[in-house]
């Protein structure tokens, strides 16, 4: 099999989505650590348009954008296990939620960088996102993909797990269990999937790093 490399940084939620997908599929890969304050020539060559991580390089060919990468992984290694539904209509629904996660999940990352009125605005957007997913996304299913996790679960998994740390770092509380019982139950199930459990960064260690970053961001604001 052609060589697989994943270019990324530690503690990036977008990188973790790809790690989870590769591990779930049992695809061996090499992790290449990138320094975003000093982007490598290789990263700029592989992602000239956005200059961002993650980038998956398969047999020397680069794929960019985490959810594009996830769909590429699903199509290239379709079995064991399948991470998307097997009929076009349900797949279209999965893609809808993937797009929703991409478009609205941005509020969580923006929250981390904002203060004052902007923080209030991004918190409101993040809450609306959570409410929509709570009411319409899961239904009575265990996972977004049904009985087993899929790409939509990976998309939201990184958003919600990172939100818990970002909330603490910023000093706010959004994701409360009495407000979002379905999502809380789903997150517990998600974290107990063996591959996910083995590949979750420790939230206490994350908090130390994120608090420091947050202090720097606020100081320079």
């Amino acid at each position, binding site marked *: 099999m052609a060589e697989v490399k994943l270019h990324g940084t530690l503690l990036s939620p977008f990188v973790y989505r790809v790690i989870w997908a590769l591990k779930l599929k049992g695809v061996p890969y090499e992790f290449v650590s990138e320094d975003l304050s000093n982007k490598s020539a290789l990263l700029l060559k592989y992602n000239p348009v956005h200059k961002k991580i993650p980038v998956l390089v398969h047999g020397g*060919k680069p794929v960019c*954008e985490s959810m*594009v990468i996830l769909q*590429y992984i699903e199509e290239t290694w379709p079995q064991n296990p399948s991470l998307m539904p097997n009929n076009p*209509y349900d797949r*279209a629904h999965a893609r809808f939620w993937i*797009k929703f996660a991409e478009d609205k999940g941005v509020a969580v990352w923006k929250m981390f960088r904002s203060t004052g009125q902007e923080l209030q605005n991004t918190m409101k957007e993040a809450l609306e996102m959570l409410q929509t997913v709570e009411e319409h996304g899961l239904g009575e299913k265990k996972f977004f993909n049904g009985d087993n996790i899929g790409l939509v679960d990976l998309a939201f998994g990184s958003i919600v797990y990172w939100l818990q740390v970002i909330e603490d770092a910023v000093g706010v509380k959004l994701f409360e269990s009495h407000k979002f019982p379905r999502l809380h139950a789903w997150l517990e199930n998600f974290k107990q999937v063996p591959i996910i459990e083995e590949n979750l960064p420790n939230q206490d260690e994350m908090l130390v790093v994120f608090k420091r970053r947050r202090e720097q961001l606020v100081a320079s604001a």
Partner: protein
Amino acid sequence: MSKGEVVLLDCWASPFCLRAKIALAEKGVEYEARAENLFGGKKVPVLLHDGKPLCESTIIVNYIDETWPSPPLLPSCAFERAKARFWSDFIDKKYATYGKARARSPAKNEFIEILKQLEGALGEKDFFGGDSFGFVDVIAIPLTCWFYAVEEFGGFKVENECPKFSAWMNKCMQRETVARILPDPEKVYEFVIMLRNMFGIE
């Protein structure tokens, strides 16, 4: 070719509806178009297949491609499909940045920069996917009927600034489906003027 009843909730000026219509036309799928009022609050396009609804134009085009596979819009190779998804995502992200300004035109330099990046994606190919009209072409071509308005307000011509992109537009317009479905750019221009008056934009 028929696989159940297909209805499209549609609005003539919406480039997103045009994407769905072009995809259906390319596949030879018969459907009923139900015109919706642009300011009626309903989001278009919505595709109803045997009563089951789908929204979001890119997702609808993807669904149409999977349900009626011939002729294919997405390439068969996973890597090429990833490239198609990447560029489709790029186009939508750029539209989200500028299109939400309620008919206010993007700055000329930013607009040209985006077209130049798309020219990079085209390379020496006839279409984004290669020799055949495909997914990214369907996603991109409807947005070009708003270009006349952008050119008029910006005082420039895409043909002069980005000849490669302009050549791609012409190739698309030679397709019967695209030529038949895309509205007259002058009609769109008048519509844009109306929108600007409504929102008080100079």
